[in-house]
């Protein structure tokens, strides 16, 4: 486990270097002055600009420029947003938790719906229910997410009026910002309307989370179906059957556990996909998250925000990736060994 940890750690450091290099080079690629793109200070006077470009080592060679950029990032200074002139790190700290909350709820829904359906399909392999589930999965995988979001708003918010169509919580509730994750903040607050706020926030998250969850859920269906078919063909299942275990005992005691391990491995990869979908969904449902903020920065040509947004979002995705790798390795001793660079 120690070598595994060290290897993942080196991969993590390498990745962070590549990602920062990417966002560093973006400042040169974007239109406009490099220092202004780094710092986002568009209204600065000439003296202030000289100070800023000194702090970014702009008069020295490219390597010390990169070093200066790295030290700025490590100190938590991502520059100012060109649009609002407030520090980007503060904006991200306010927005990222909302995205984390939304994407984790969506991931949970996707797994809770997708994995059992995949198991059912695998148990009825090559029968009607298998084919029905697979066809539905394919349809769900093909629906453009923005269209699905609009249809969901039309049906559930406007025609039926069951669920709210935009935002994170009704503006009537005043929730103090502590962690940024709405549900935790509500539970921490001492408002007398805590539970009303909680149910209101849950009603707000259902629709966007379900829209995001659809495509990953269909992928979980396919993954869990493939994993379950593989497990059911294994010889230890045949041994269990020979010992006289009945069908449900085999499925619940042996097959599901072994199939789940295989699925956990893919959760990290699916998460990147899920975050992309979440970005678009945030725009449609006006969710105050980092995806909507990033797309708005593209409209506003806020280059400092774009490069920091890229850095933060891909870091977040990569951290989840590594976490799932660790969980997989902790659950499955076979995975700790020989996977060089994979």
């Amino acid at each position, binding site marked *: 486990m120690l070598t595994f940890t060290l290897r993942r750690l080196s991969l993590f450091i390498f*990745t962070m270097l590549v990602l920062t290099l990417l966002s560093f080079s973006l400042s040169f690629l974007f239109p406009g002055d490099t220092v202004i793109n780094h710092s986002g200070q568009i209204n600065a006077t000439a003296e202030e600009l000289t100070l800023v470009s000194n702090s970014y080592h702009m008069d020295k060679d490219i390597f010390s420029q990169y070093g200066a950029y790295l030290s700025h990032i490590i100190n938590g200074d991502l520059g100012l947003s060109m649009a609002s002139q407030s520090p980007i790190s503060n904006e991200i700290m306010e927005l990222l938790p909302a995205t984390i909350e939304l994407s984790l709820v969506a991931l949970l829904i996707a797994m809770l719906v997708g994995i059992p359906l995949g198991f059912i399909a695998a148990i009825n392999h090559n029968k009607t229910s298998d084919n029905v589930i697979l066809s539905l999965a394919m349809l769900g995988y*093909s629906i453009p*997410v923005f269209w699905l979001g609009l249809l969901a708003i039309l049906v559930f918010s406007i025609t039926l009026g069951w669920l709210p169509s935009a935002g994170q919580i009704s503006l009537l509730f005043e929730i103090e910002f502590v962690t940024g994750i709405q549900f935790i903040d509500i539970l921490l607050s001492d408002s007398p309307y805590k539970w009303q706020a909680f149910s209101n926030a849950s009603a707000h998250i259902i629709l966007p989370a379900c829209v995001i969850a659809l495509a990953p859920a269909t992928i979980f269906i396919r993954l869990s179906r493939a994993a379950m078919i593989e497990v059911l063909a294994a010889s230890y299942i045949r041994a269990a059957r020979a010992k006289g275990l009945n069908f449900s005992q085999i499925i619940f005691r042996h097959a599901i556990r072994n199939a789940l391990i295989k699925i956990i491995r893919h959760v990290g990869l699916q998460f990147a996909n899920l975050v992309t979908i979440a970005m678009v969904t945030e725009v449609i449902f006006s969710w105050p998250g980092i995806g909507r903020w990033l797309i708005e920065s*593209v409209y506003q040509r806020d280059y400092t925000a774009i490069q920091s947004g890229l850095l933060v979002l891909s870091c977040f995705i990569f951290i989840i990736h590594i976490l799932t790798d660790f969980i997989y390795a902790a659950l499955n001793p076979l995975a700790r060994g020989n996977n060089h660079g994979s």
Partner: protein
Amino acid sequence: MAREKIYLEEIFPSPFMQLWGIFRKTPVAMVGFVSFIFLILLAIFAPLLAPYSPVDGNLDMILLPPAWHPDGNVSYLLGTDELGRDMLSRLMYGTSLTFGLSFIVVIFSLVIGVLIGSLSALTSGIKSSFLNHFLDVVLSIPSLLLAIIIVAILGPGISNTVWAIAVVFIPQFIHITRYAVKEEFRKDYVLASRLDGASNFRILYYSVFPNIVERLMSQATLAQSAAILDIATLGFLGIGAQIPLPEWGSILANGLERFYIAPWTVYLPGLAILFAVVATNLVGEGIRHALKLRKES
């Protein structure tokens, strides 16, 4: 009667033809394949087939519902939008933008990815390890996010979107080619031709490529369905195709303001995207299914 074949000759179809033989017998995959061909033909011949211009409106015929609606007009089969532009013509021209461009993008990325991938499969050591880690990093960033960043550098517009998506899709082809070529190079038939004195490039061209082409095609269909969705999503967000262009995503975004009075301007482009993606995915599923069956037989 003359018999042309005197001897009973055993024919070994090439791997690709074997695959086609299995693929042809799967009805669902064939439906997808026919739809795919239909979309390609539509993308090429849309200017000849479309009844009206996609950008010029007829101001007498504003917001006409589709023909099956009581208020519809049969000369505008799928209705018109808020400027009196015929939806059917717009969707037909949109095929060549959304579907046709995604097809070209995927072919472009495929060629470049296969070139780099097969070259990198032949190298080893620190260079190869670096490339592998680098690809892992790039693949861990969502394709849409990367495309948005590239569009932000280049500026909005359909041509920039296409370049961005082409660049974003290259790494996955490098990755899959690299793995496939490395896997094939370990097999005995490659060793046999190596013993015959074939050079690496000769082995690659004559022995390895015919055996990995289906895997590349299967990846290409996956990439294309993602490309269609990405082009449409960027168009929907307003950073892809710009206003008068009849790109499916931007038609949909355009119809958004009149969603309640003219729902067909939102339903129809969405259905078009769905149809294109489903057709592509069906072809991909068919290929993967046939690959699996061929492996088992």
